[in-house]
């Protein structure tokens, strides 16, 4: 039996009775000998037999009575972590200064005749105190039979240091074999200093790559002003529950997602949606947590709290995207897993070649080249090339309301050459209105459509309501997808729908053909109403085209992407709308389930297709496309079938998303080119391939400088992406 005592916080306690309830429940767990709960501290102390009781048992005992035990106290809060990081960085900076100062004294000292023993004394702290971290990383890695960057630095500097120490202590032995007993402490110390300097800047720059996510987290309001029993009370954001009524004053942040109950205001949603113009909202409108209330005071009902809010979903999505791996990274990963052992083998080979074929003193020549090879090799740059760019790219996207599902979506988006826009709700507002009524058909049409859920039906019913038309009773109502609706009104069979429906019902439409054509040429969707097999009238419905549509289509065409519009409308109507927004290719009269097929057909023609739709009705097409773009999804961003989700309604965001992908990929390619090119070019130079022709060798000190620069340059290049215009 192993009896231990554990103290852990409890959440959700309000009163003294809670204390007794929790204590009782904990005591009942078999193996618990005592349990005491402190209300003021909100903590429980439990003594138990750890062989019989585990954390899970304690946690369920507490949750069974309605509270929450925080047993997993493993993560320190962010402030502590931040402080620790700053401390680490400060320590690193001091180490850099010490090693470079001592190294500098040694470099100058070698010219001024500083004796070897003094040099040794100066080099020891650099090698074994400052450089301790290289050994600390190397030894456990060797136990695992793995090697990394630190292994190379530890090997390289140890060789230089050990040789120098040897010639200092036993100069006669070295002299005997014909080598001048000159130490190379400058090499070992300066290398350590420069590599740590590189690491210092790299750590500072790397922190910048994850700034976007930190900024998103920082957007969250800390408190909410809840109205309880007629009084306003400020409560922590974590205590806000669904259904609570919250008051927001001008200049305040909206704490959680909800729906306005009373009042109106202008709200700046730019931080979440990327849309810069404030949105006017009034009773019944949805508000988004973390956005800024500009002008009015209003109350709203919380509908989504905690991890369900739009902001939380965005953060989760961005975090996931930043953790995913781009296909382009796989090669870099494969290479870096073999890289260090290969470099060690090359270093040994360099020594052998230098010793056998090099100029006298061959040992020195071979050793310095070997150290240069070990030091110049930089696997870190390869490892950092892709993830840093992905982190900056996805973060930049989120700031503009462009949410990227994963790194491979970001990679695919830049390859697309065709984009298919769904018409309704994507190119248009998705709120059609009745524009023309031919014949006395509104009453019958609205009566029929009352039972339908189609967006066109809503337009007709709304029109009837505004005209105060009394609706009739409909029996045997049936919706025929892709055609229209039918039913019986007062014993007569009434059908309302498109040409296909008329053909199906064998209704002659010749006498209305001119009206029909005229309306369709104006880009209106025309529905025909037939009663007992005869056409009696037409109803035209039109949807407003989004302001951004024309500009976005033009921008896409300018970057060489073919824009296609897909719709269930007939050819004429579709073409009229396409003309208005500048689209040349139209896929009309496509049934809802045919969109996926059309995407497939384009792909079979060798095209890389993006599909932009509303994300709800278009899921199969979004999934079929090489990249699915879900548009203006408002409060639900977790759309599985979409590779890219746009929080706002602005069609220009589609262009921005593609530009973002192109720019991120360009950064990744440049990073990889630099990281690989650097190693491919400089490792052979360090090995001495240029020596036989030009007598060029790489001094190990320069090697360490170049190596320090290579990681910094890759991270800095990724950070440049932050300034990219998308």
């Amino acid at each position, binding site marked *: 039996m192993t009896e231990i005592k554990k103290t852990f916080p409890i959440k959700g306690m309000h009163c003294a009775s809670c204390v007794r309830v929790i204590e009782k429940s904990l005591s009942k767990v078999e193996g618990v000998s005592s349990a005491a709960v402190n209300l003021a501290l909100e903590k429980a102390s439990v003594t138990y037999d750890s062989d019989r009781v585990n954390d899970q048992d304690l946690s369920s005992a507490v949750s069974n009575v309605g509270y929450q035990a925080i047993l*997993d106290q*493993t*993560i*320190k809060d962010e402030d502590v*972590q931040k402080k*620790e990081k700053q401390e680490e960085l400060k320590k690193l900076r001091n180490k850099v200064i010490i090693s470079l100062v001592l190294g500098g004294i040694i470099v100058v000292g070698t010219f001024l005749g500083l004796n070897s023993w003094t040099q040794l004394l100066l080099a020891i702290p650099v090698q074994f105190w400052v450089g301790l*971290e290289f050994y*600390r*990383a*190397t*030894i*456990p*890695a*060797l*136990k*695992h*039979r*793995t*090697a*990394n*960057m*630190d292994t190379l630095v530890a090997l390289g500097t140890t060789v230089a240091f050990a040789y120098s120490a040897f010639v200092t202590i036993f100069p006669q032995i070295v002299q005997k074999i014909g080598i001048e007993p000159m130490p190379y402490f400058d090499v070992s110390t300066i290398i350590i200093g420069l590599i740590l300097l590189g*690491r210092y800047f790299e*750590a500072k720059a790397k922190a910048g790559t994850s700034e976007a996510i930190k900024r998103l987290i920082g957007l969250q309001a800390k408190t909410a002003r809840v109205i309880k029993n007629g009084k306003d009370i400020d409560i922590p954001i974590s205590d806000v529950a669904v259904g609570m009524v919250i008051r927001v004053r001008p200049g305040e942040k909206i704490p959680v997602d909800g729906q306005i109950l009373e009042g109106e205001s202008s709200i700046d949603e730019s931080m979440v949606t990327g849309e810069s113009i404030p949105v006017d909202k009034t009773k019944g409108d949805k508000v988004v947590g973390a956005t800024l209330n500009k002008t009015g005071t209003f109350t709203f009902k919380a509908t989504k709290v905690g991890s369900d809010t739009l902001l939380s979903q965005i953060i989760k999505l961005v*975090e*996931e*995207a*930043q*953790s*995913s*791996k781009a296909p382009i*990274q796989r090669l*870099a*990963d494969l290479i*870096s*897993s*073999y890289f*260090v*052992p290969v470099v*060690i*083998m090359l270093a*040994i*080979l360099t*020594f*052998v070649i230098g*010793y*056998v074929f090099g100029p006298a003193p061959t040992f020195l020549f*071979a050793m310095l080249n070997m150290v240069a090879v070990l030091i110049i090799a930089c*696997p*870190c740059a*390869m*490892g*950092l090339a892709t*993830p840093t760019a992905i982190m900056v790219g996805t973060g930049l996207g989120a700031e503009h309301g462009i949410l990227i599902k*994963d790194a491979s979506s970001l990679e695919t988006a830049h390859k697309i050459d065709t984009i298919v826009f769904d018409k309704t709700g994507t190119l248009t507002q998705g709120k059609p209105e009745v524009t023309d009524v031919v014949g006395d058909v509104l009453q019958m049409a609205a009566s029929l459509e009352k039972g339908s859920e189609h967006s066109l039906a809503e337009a007709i019913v709304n029109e009837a309501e505004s005209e105060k038309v009394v609706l009739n009773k409909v029996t045997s109502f049936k919706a025929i997808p892709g055609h229209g609706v039918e039913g019986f009104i007062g014993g007569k069979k009434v059908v309302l729908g498109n040409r296909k429906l008329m053909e199906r019902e064998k209704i002659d439409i010749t006498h209305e053909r001119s009206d029909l054509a005229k309306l369709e040429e104006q880009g209106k969707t025309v529905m025909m109403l037939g009663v007992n097999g005869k056409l009696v009238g037409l109803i035209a419905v039109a949807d407003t085209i989004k302001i951004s549509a024309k500009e976005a289509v033009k921008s896409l065409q300018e970057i060489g992407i073919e824009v296609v519009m897909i719709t269930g409308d007939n050819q004429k109507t579709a073409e009229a709308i396409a003309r208005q927004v500048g689209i040349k290719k139209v896929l009309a009269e496509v049934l809802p389930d045919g969109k996926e097929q059309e995407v497939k057909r384009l792909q079979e023609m060798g095209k890389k297709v993006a599909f932009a739709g509303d994300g709800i009705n278009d899921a199969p097409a979004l999934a079929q496309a090489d990249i699915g773009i879900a548009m203006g999804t408002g409060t639900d961003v977790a759309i599985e079938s979409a590779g890219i989700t746009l929080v706002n309604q602005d069609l220009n965001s589609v262009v921005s998303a593609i530009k973002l992908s192109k720019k991120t990929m360009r950064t990744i390619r440049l990073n990889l080119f630099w990281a690989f090119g650097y190693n491919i070019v400089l490792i052979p130079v360090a090995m001495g391939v240029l020596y036989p022709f030009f007598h060029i060798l790489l001094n190990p000190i320069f090697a360490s400088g170049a190596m320090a620069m290579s990681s910094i340059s890759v991270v800095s290049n990724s950070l440049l992406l932050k300034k990219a215009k998308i």
Partner: protein
Amino acid sequence: MSTDKIIVTIVGFIGILFTYWFFLMKKEKEVMVKNEVDITVSGGYSPEVISITVGKTTKINFLRTDPTECLHDVVLSDFKIRKELPLNQKVSIEVTPQKTGEYPFSCGMGMYHGKIIVK
């Protein structure tokens, strides 16, 4: 070729072969995990290879005891998880794999590797 050069050549090639054998020919030890596993992060991951059951949630606790900057992040890209591993603090993640197969994980820079085998 003088004797010393012959010796250096032979020793060098033995060194190269040893490096190859030591780093690139190691056998991975697979650890079967039922519900929960503790992985120590020091100079790599131990255990390095774990096998878990498909469709079941497995808790993986990482404890980094090695200050090497490289090991600061752990990335399980197939599960879209990237976690910071503060020194000497346990960080737990949960995975519920839906498909059998091998899912590698690595440090943030891809220098240290481990593997989750889903059976």
